[in-house]
Protein backbone atom coordinates (compact mmCIF):
# COMPACT_ATOMS: atom_id res chain seq x y z
CA UNK A 1 0.00 0.00 0.00
CA UNK A 2 2.89 2.35 0.81
CA UNK A 3 4.20 1.69 -2.70
CA UNK A 4 0.90 2.69 -4.28
CA UNK A 5 0.70 5.85 -2.17
CA UNK A 6 4.27 6.78 -3.08
CA UNK A 7 3.55 6.13 -6.76
CA UNK A 8 0.44 8.31 -6.52
CA UNK A 9 2.46 11.05 -4.88
CA UNK A 10 5.26 10.93 -7.44
CA UNK A 11 2.89 10.74 -10.42
CA UNK A 12 0.82 13.73 -9.36
CA UNK A 13 3.88 15.69 -8.30
CA UNK A 14 5.25 15.34 -11.84
CA UNK A 15 1.87 16.25 -13.31
CA UNK A 16 1.76 19.38 -11.11
CA UNK A 17 5.31 20.24 -12.14
CA UNK A 18 4.94 19.78 -15.89
CA UNK A 19 1.20 20.35 -16.26
CA UNK A 20 1.35 23.22 -18.72
CA UNK A 21 -1.75 24.26 -20.62
CA UNK A 22 -4.53 23.98 -18.07
CA UNK A 23 -6.96 21.34 -16.87
CA UNK A 24 -7.50 19.43 -20.10
CA UNK A 25 -3.78 19.07 -20.79
CA UNK A 26 -3.47 17.71 -17.27
CA UNK A 27 -6.23 15.23 -18.05
CA UNK A 28 -4.03 13.94 -20.86
CA UNK A 29 -1.10 13.51 -18.47
CA UNK A 30 -3.21 11.79 -15.83
CA UNK A 31 -4.55 9.48 -18.54
CA UNK A 32 -1.03 8.67 -19.73
CA UNK A 33 0.24 7.78 -16.26
CA UNK A 34 -2.81 6.36 -14.52
CA UNK A 35 -4.35 4.33 -17.36
CA UNK A 36 -1.48 3.91 -19.81
CA UNK A 37 1.48 3.38 -17.51
CA UNK A 38 0.24 2.08 -14.15
CA UNK A 39 -3.12 0.54 -15.19
CA UNK A 40 -4.75 1.71 -11.97
CA UNK A 41 -8.12 1.89 -13.78
CA UNK A 42 -9.72 1.26 -17.16
CA UNK A 43 -10.24 3.91 -19.84
CA UNK A 44 -14.00 3.75 -19.15
CA UNK A 45 -13.57 4.46 -15.43
CA UNK A 46 -11.22 7.28 -16.29
CA UNK A 47 -13.80 8.79 -18.66
CA UNK A 48 -16.41 8.71 -15.87
CA UNK A 49 -13.97 10.55 -13.60
CA UNK A 50 -13.44 13.24 -16.24
CA UNK A 51 -17.23 13.60 -16.59
CA UNK A 52 -17.68 14.09 -12.85
CA UNK A 53 -14.68 16.46 -12.65
CA UNK A 54 -16.15 18.64 -15.37
CA UNK A 55 -19.55 18.93 -13.80
CA UNK A 56 -18.65 19.56 -10.15
CA UNK A 57 -17.37 22.78 -8.59
CA UNK A 58 -13.68 23.60 -8.58
CA UNK A 59 -10.73 23.28 -10.95
CA UNK A 60 -10.76 20.16 -13.14
CA UNK A 61 -7.15 19.36 -12.18
CA UNK A 62 -7.97 19.21 -8.46
CA UNK A 63 -11.23 17.34 -9.01
CA UNK A 64 -9.63 14.65 -11.14
CA UNK A 65 -6.59 14.29 -8.84
CA UNK A 66 -8.90 13.77 -5.87
CA UNK A 67 -11.08 11.27 -7.72
CA UNK A 68 -8.19 9.35 -9.29
CA UNK A 69 -6.46 9.07 -5.89
CA UNK A 70 -9.59 7.56 -4.40
CA UNK A 71 -10.37 5.20 -7.28
CA UNK A 72 -6.79 3.92 -7.57
CA UNK A 73 -6.76 2.86 -3.91
CA UNK A 74 -10.22 1.29 -4.01
CA UNK A 75 -9.46 -0.52 -7.30
CA UNK A 76 -6.35 -2.00 -5.68
CA UNK A 77 -8.62 -3.57 -3.05
CA UNK A 78 -8.29 -1.13 -0.16
CA UNK A 79 -11.23 0.20 1.85
CA UNK A 80 -12.85 3.59 1.06
CA UNK A 81 -11.03 5.05 4.11
CA UNK A 82 -7.73 4.33 2.38
CA UNK A 83 -9.28 5.77 -0.75
CA UNK A 84 -9.70 9.06 1.10
CA UNK A 85 -6.01 8.95 1.99
CA UNK A 86 -5.20 8.32 -1.68
CA UNK A 87 -7.27 11.40 -2.61
CA UNK A 88 -5.40 13.48 -0.12
CA UNK A 89 -1.98 12.32 -1.32
CA UNK A 90 -2.79 12.91 -5.01
CA UNK A 91 -4.32 16.36 -4.40
CA UNK A 92 -1.48 17.44 -2.11
CA UNK A 93 1.13 16.25 -4.61
CA UNK A 94 -0.42 18.01 -7.59
CA UNK A 95 -0.56 21.33 -5.72
CA UNK A 96 2.90 21.11 -4.10
CA UNK A 97 4.99 22.23 -7.13
CA UNK A 98 2.77 25.31 -7.46
CA UNK A 99 4.08 26.68 -4.16
CA UNK A 100 7.69 26.64 -5.28
CA UNK A 101 6.82 27.79 -8.79
CA UNK A 102 4.68 30.73 -7.73
CA UNK A 103 7.41 31.86 -5.36
CA UNK A 104 9.84 31.88 -8.29
CA UNK A 105 7.24 33.59 -10.46
CA UNK A 106 6.73 36.42 -8.00
CA UNK A 107 10.50 36.92 -7.93
CA UNK A 108 11.54 36.31 -11.55
CA UNK A 109 9.00 35.40 -14.19
CA UNK A 110 6.94 38.55 -13.76
CA UNK A 111 10.09 40.38 -14.86
CA UNK A 112 11.47 37.97 -17.46
CA UNK A 113 8.38 36.66 -19.18
CA UNK A 114 9.24 38.52 -22.37
CA UNK A 115 12.86 37.38 -22.29
CA UNK A 116 13.76 35.55 -25.57
CA UNK A 117 14.76 32.30 -23.80
CA UNK A 118 11.39 32.09 -22.06
CA UNK A 119 9.60 32.79 -25.33
CA UNK A 120 11.63 30.10 -27.12
CA UNK A 121 10.58 27.48 -24.57
CA UNK A 122 6.93 28.45 -24.96
CA UNK A 123 7.16 28.45 -28.75
CA UNK A 124 7.78 24.70 -28.42
CA UNK A 125 5.44 24.09 -25.48
CA UNK A 126 2.25 25.70 -26.74
CA UNK A 127 1.81 23.65 -29.91
CA UNK A 128 2.77 20.45 -28.08
CA UNK A 129 0.05 20.99 -25.48
CA UNK A 130 -2.53 21.04 -28.28
CA UNK A 131 -1.18 17.65 -29.35
CA UNK A 132 -1.69 16.40 -25.80
CA UNK A 133 -5.38 17.22 -25.94
CA UNK A 134 -5.75 15.61 -29.34
CA UNK A 135 -4.07 12.43 -28.09
CA UNK A 136 -6.30 12.34 -25.00
CA UNK A 137 -9.41 12.51 -27.19
CA UNK A 138 -8.09 9.85 -29.60
CA UNK A 139 -7.20 7.49 -26.74
CA UNK A 140 -10.70 7.86 -25.31
CA UNK A 141 -12.29 6.78 -28.59
CA UNK A 142 -12.22 3.09 -27.77
CA UNK A 143 -14.61 0.18 -27.41
CA UNK A 144 -15.15 0.79 -23.75
CA UNK A 145 -16.50 4.29 -24.35
CA UNK A 146 -18.29 3.77 -27.66
CA UNK A 147 -19.05 0.05 -27.86
CA UNK A 148 -18.08 -1.80 -31.03
CA UNK A 149 -19.93 -1.68 -34.35
CA UNK A 150 -19.74 -5.47 -34.70
CA UNK A 151 -20.89 -6.61 -31.25
CA UNK A 152 -23.41 -3.97 -30.36
CA UNK A 153 -24.21 -1.71 -33.33
CA UNK A 154 -27.08 0.04 -31.47
CA UNK A 155 -24.75 1.26 -28.74
CA UNK A 156 -21.97 2.13 -31.19
CA UNK A 157 -24.07 4.30 -33.52
CA UNK A 158 -25.92 5.90 -30.64
CA UNK A 159 -22.61 6.75 -28.96
CA UNK A 160 -21.40 8.25 -32.19
CA UNK A 161 -24.59 10.31 -32.40
CA UNK A 162 -24.16 11.57 -28.81
CA UNK A 163 -20.55 12.42 -29.60
CA UNK A 164 -21.65 14.55 -32.57
CA UNK A 165 -24.47 16.07 -30.53
CA UNK A 166 -22.05 17.13 -27.79
CA UNK A 167 -19.53 18.46 -30.29
CA UNK A 168 -22.00 20.52 -32.28
CA UNK A 169 -23.99 21.49 -29.18
CA UNK A 170 -20.96 23.13 -27.62
CA UNK A 171 -19.23 24.45 -30.73
CA UNK A 172 -22.20 25.83 -32.63
CA UNK A 173 -24.91 26.36 -30.03
CA UNK A 174 -22.58 27.09 -27.08
CA UNK A 175 -24.42 24.80 -24.68
CA UNK A 176 -22.66 24.47 -21.31
CA UNK A 177 -20.74 21.28 -20.58
CA UNK A 178 -22.96 20.38 -17.62
CA UNK A 179 -26.12 20.64 -19.69
CA UNK A 180 -24.57 18.48 -22.40
CA UNK A 181 -23.43 15.86 -19.91
CA UNK A 182 -26.86 15.72 -18.26
CA UNK A 183 -28.70 15.47 -21.59
CA UNK A 184 -26.44 12.68 -22.85
CA UNK A 185 -26.75 10.84 -19.55
CA UNK A 186 -30.55 11.04 -19.75
CA UNK A 187 -30.44 9.88 -23.36
CA UNK A 188 -28.37 6.91 -22.17
CA UNK A 189 -31.08 5.98 -19.67
CA UNK A 190 -34.07 6.56 -21.94
CA UNK A 191 -32.59 4.78 -24.94
CA UNK A 192 -31.13 1.93 -22.87
CA UNK A 193 -27.56 2.47 -24.00
Amino acid at each position, binding site marked *: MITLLLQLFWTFFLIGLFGFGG*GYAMISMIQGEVVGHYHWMTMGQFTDIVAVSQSTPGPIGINSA*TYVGYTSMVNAGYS*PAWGVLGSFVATFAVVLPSFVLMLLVSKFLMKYRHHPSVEHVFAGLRP*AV*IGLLLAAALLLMNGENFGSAGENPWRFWLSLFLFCFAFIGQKVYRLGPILIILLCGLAG*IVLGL
Partner: protein
Amino acid sequence: MLELFKTFFQIGLFTIGGGYAMIPLIEQKVVDEQGWVSRNELLDLIAVAQSCPGIFAVNISIFIGNKLRGNKGALVSALGTCLPSFLCILMIALIFQQFRENIWVEHFFRGIRPAVVALILLPVFRMAASAKLNRYNAWIPIAAAFLIWMFGVSPIFVVVAAGILGYVYGKYLKEDPGNP
Protein backbone atom coordinates in the same frame (compact mmCIF):
# COMPACT_ATOMS: atom_id res chain seq x y z
CA MET B 1 -6.15 35.34 7.04
CA LEU B 2 -9.71 34.20 7.52
CA GLU B 3 -10.75 36.51 4.71
CA LEU B 4 -8.19 34.89 2.39
CA PHE B 5 -9.53 31.44 3.19
CA LYS B 6 -13.15 32.50 2.86
CA THR B 7 -12.64 34.31 -0.44
CA PHE B 8 -10.79 31.46 -2.13
CA PHE B 9 -13.16 28.89 -0.68
CA GLN B 10 -16.01 30.74 -2.40
CA ILE B 11 -14.04 30.92 -5.62
CA GLY B 12 -13.43 27.17 -5.45
CA LEU B 13 -17.04 26.41 -4.58
CA PHE B 14 -18.90 28.57 -7.07
CA THR B 15 -17.05 27.89 -10.29
CA ILE B 16 -17.87 24.87 -12.36
CA GLY B 17 -15.80 23.99 -15.38
CA GLY B 18 -12.59 25.26 -13.83
CA GLY B 19 -9.81 27.35 -15.29
CA TYR B 20 -10.92 30.32 -17.30
CA ALA B 21 -14.50 30.16 -16.07
CA MET B 22 -13.02 31.29 -12.75
CA ILE B 23 -11.48 34.53 -13.99
CA PRO B 24 -14.60 36.74 -13.69
CA LEU B 25 -15.29 35.57 -10.13
CA ILE B 26 -11.64 35.95 -9.11
CA GLU B 27 -11.68 39.46 -10.52
CA GLN B 28 -14.86 40.39 -8.69
CA LYS B 29 -13.72 39.00 -5.33
CA VAL B 30 -10.06 39.93 -5.33
CA VAL B 31 -10.10 43.28 -7.14
CA ASP B 32 -13.56 44.76 -6.62
CA GLU B 33 -14.53 43.47 -3.18
CA GLN B 34 -11.24 43.02 -1.35
CA GLY B 35 -8.91 45.32 -3.28
CA TRP B 36 -5.97 42.97 -2.68
CA VAL B 37 -4.46 43.61 -6.11
CA SER B 38 -5.14 46.18 -8.80
CA ARG B 39 -6.89 45.19 -12.02
CA ASN B 40 -3.69 45.60 -14.04
CA GLU B 41 -1.73 43.50 -11.57
CA LEU B 42 -4.34 40.78 -11.85
CA LEU B 43 -4.18 40.86 -15.66
CA ASP B 44 -0.40 40.44 -15.51
CA LEU B 45 -0.81 37.66 -13.00
CA ILE B 46 -3.38 35.87 -15.18
CA ALA B 47 -1.04 36.04 -18.18
CA VAL B 48 1.83 34.58 -16.16
CA ALA B 49 -0.26 31.96 -14.35
CA GLN B 50 -1.58 30.74 -17.71
CA SER B 51 1.94 30.01 -18.89
CA CYS B 52 2.91 28.30 -15.64
CA PRO B 53 2.47 24.60 -15.02
CA GLY B 54 -0.03 23.51 -12.40
CA ILE B 55 -3.61 24.41 -11.70
CA PHE B 56 -4.46 27.93 -12.78
CA ALA B 57 -6.77 28.89 -9.89
CA VAL B 58 -4.40 27.38 -7.33
CA ASN B 59 -1.47 29.29 -8.79
CA ILE B 60 -3.37 32.56 -8.56
CA SER B 61 -4.50 31.90 -5.00
CA ILE B 62 -0.94 31.03 -3.91
CA PHE B 63 0.44 34.17 -5.52
CA ILE B 64 -2.10 36.47 -3.89
CA GLY B 65 -1.90 34.72 -0.52
CA ASN B 66 1.88 34.98 -0.60
CA LYS B 67 1.77 38.64 -1.53
CA LEU B 68 -0.54 39.54 1.34
CA ARG B 69 0.57 37.27 4.17
CA GLY B 70 3.71 35.40 3.08
CA ASN B 71 4.01 31.61 3.19
CA LYS B 72 1.15 31.10 5.63
CA GLY B 73 -1.13 33.22 3.48
CA ALA B 74 -0.19 31.15 0.43
CA LEU B 75 -0.99 27.94 2.30
CA VAL B 76 -4.34 29.19 3.58
CA SER B 77 -5.40 30.47 0.14
CA ALA B 78 -4.44 27.24 -1.62
CA LEU B 79 -6.31 25.24 1.00
CA GLY B 80 -9.38 27.42 0.48
CA THR B 81 -9.30 26.84 -3.29
CA CYS B 82 -8.84 23.07 -3.05
CA LEU B 83 -11.11 22.20 -0.16
CA PRO B 84 -14.51 22.54 -1.93
CA SER B 85 -13.32 20.30 -4.78
CA PHE B 86 -11.86 17.77 -2.42
CA LEU B 87 -14.97 17.46 -0.26
CA CYS B 88 -17.36 17.48 -3.20
CA ILE B 89 -15.51 14.76 -5.11
CA LEU B 90 -15.07 12.56 -2.04
CA MET B 91 -18.79 12.74 -1.37
CA ILE B 92 -19.57 11.76 -4.94
CA ALA B 93 -16.93 9.00 -4.94
CA LEU B 94 -18.32 7.49 -1.75
CA ILE B 95 -21.91 7.64 -3.00
CA PHE B 96 -21.02 6.40 -6.49
CA GLN B 97 -19.31 3.41 -4.89
CA GLN B 98 -22.73 2.20 -3.67
CA PHE B 99 -24.49 2.59 -7.01
CA ARG B 100 -21.78 1.42 -9.35
CA GLU B 101 -23.58 -1.79 -10.22
CA ASN B 102 -26.94 -0.06 -10.62
CA ILE B 103 -28.21 -0.49 -14.17
CA TRP B 104 -29.56 3.10 -14.46
CA VAL B 105 -26.28 4.58 -13.37
CA GLU B 106 -24.53 2.41 -15.93
CA HIS B 107 -26.84 3.61 -18.74
CA PHE B 108 -26.35 7.19 -17.60
CA PHE B 109 -22.57 6.97 -17.77
CA ARG B 110 -22.65 5.12 -21.07
CA GLY B 111 -24.50 8.10 -22.50
CA ILE B 112 -22.05 10.53 -20.96
CA ARG B 113 -18.83 8.92 -22.15
CA PRO B 114 -19.03 9.89 -25.85
CA ALA B 115 -19.97 13.45 -24.81
CA VAL B 116 -16.88 13.67 -22.61
CA VAL B 117 -14.69 12.71 -25.57
CA ALA B 118 -16.25 15.51 -27.62
CA LEU B 119 -15.75 18.00 -24.77
CA ILE B 120 -12.06 17.11 -24.64
CA LEU B 121 -11.68 17.34 -28.40
CA LEU B 122 -13.19 20.84 -28.59
CA PRO B 123 -10.41 22.79 -26.82
CA VAL B 124 -8.01 21.41 -29.44
CA PHE B 125 -9.56 23.71 -32.03
CA ARG B 126 -9.94 26.61 -29.64
CA MET B 127 -6.31 26.38 -28.55
CA ALA B 128 -5.06 25.86 -32.10
CA ALA B 129 -6.67 29.17 -33.04
CA SER B 130 -5.29 31.10 -30.06
CA ALA B 131 -1.79 29.57 -30.32
CA LYS B 132 -1.51 30.97 -33.88
CA LEU B 133 -0.48 27.70 -35.47
CA ASN B 134 1.05 28.17 -38.92
CA ARG B 135 2.55 25.92 -41.57
CA TYR B 136 5.91 25.98 -39.78
CA ASN B 137 4.75 24.66 -36.43
CA ALA B 138 1.49 22.83 -37.19
CA TRP B 139 3.43 19.54 -37.31
CA ILE B 140 4.29 19.84 -33.60
CA PRO B 141 0.83 19.06 -32.18
CA ILE B 142 0.33 16.32 -34.76
CA ALA B 143 3.67 14.72 -33.95
CA ALA B 144 3.01 15.07 -30.20
CA ALA B 145 -0.44 13.48 -30.50
CA PHE B 146 0.91 10.68 -32.68
CA LEU B 147 3.74 9.86 -30.25
CA ILE B 148 1.32 9.62 -27.35
CA TRP B 149 -1.51 7.90 -29.20
CA MET B 150 0.36 5.35 -31.33
CA PHE B 151 3.57 4.80 -29.42
CA GLY B 152 2.37 5.29 -25.85
CA VAL B 153 4.94 7.98 -25.08
CA SER B 154 4.22 9.70 -21.77
CA PRO B 155 2.61 13.16 -22.22
CA ILE B 156 4.88 14.45 -19.44
CA PHE B 157 7.91 13.48 -21.51
CA VAL B 158 6.43 15.09 -24.62
CA VAL B 159 5.90 18.42 -22.83
CA VAL B 160 9.41 18.46 -21.35
CA ALA B 161 10.96 17.55 -24.70
CA ALA B 162 8.92 20.21 -26.53
CA GLY B 163 10.11 22.89 -24.09
CA ILE B 164 13.76 21.87 -24.47
CA LEU B 165 13.55 21.60 -28.26
CA GLY B 166 11.82 24.98 -28.45
CA TYR B 167 14.64 26.52 -26.44
CA VAL B 168 17.42 24.87 -28.48
CA TYR B 169 15.73 25.73 -31.77
CA GLY B 170 15.08 29.35 -30.82
CA LYS B 171 18.54 29.87 -29.38
CA TYR B 172 20.81 28.09 -31.87
CA LEU B 173 19.00 27.15 -35.05
CA LYS B 174 16.59 29.89 -35.91
CA GLU B 175 17.93 32.18 -38.63
CA ASP B 176 15.38 34.95 -38.73
CA PRO B 177 14.63 36.16 -35.19
CA GLY B 178 11.50 37.99 -36.31
CA ASN B 179 9.73 34.83 -37.46
CA PRO B 180 8.74 32.07 -35.00
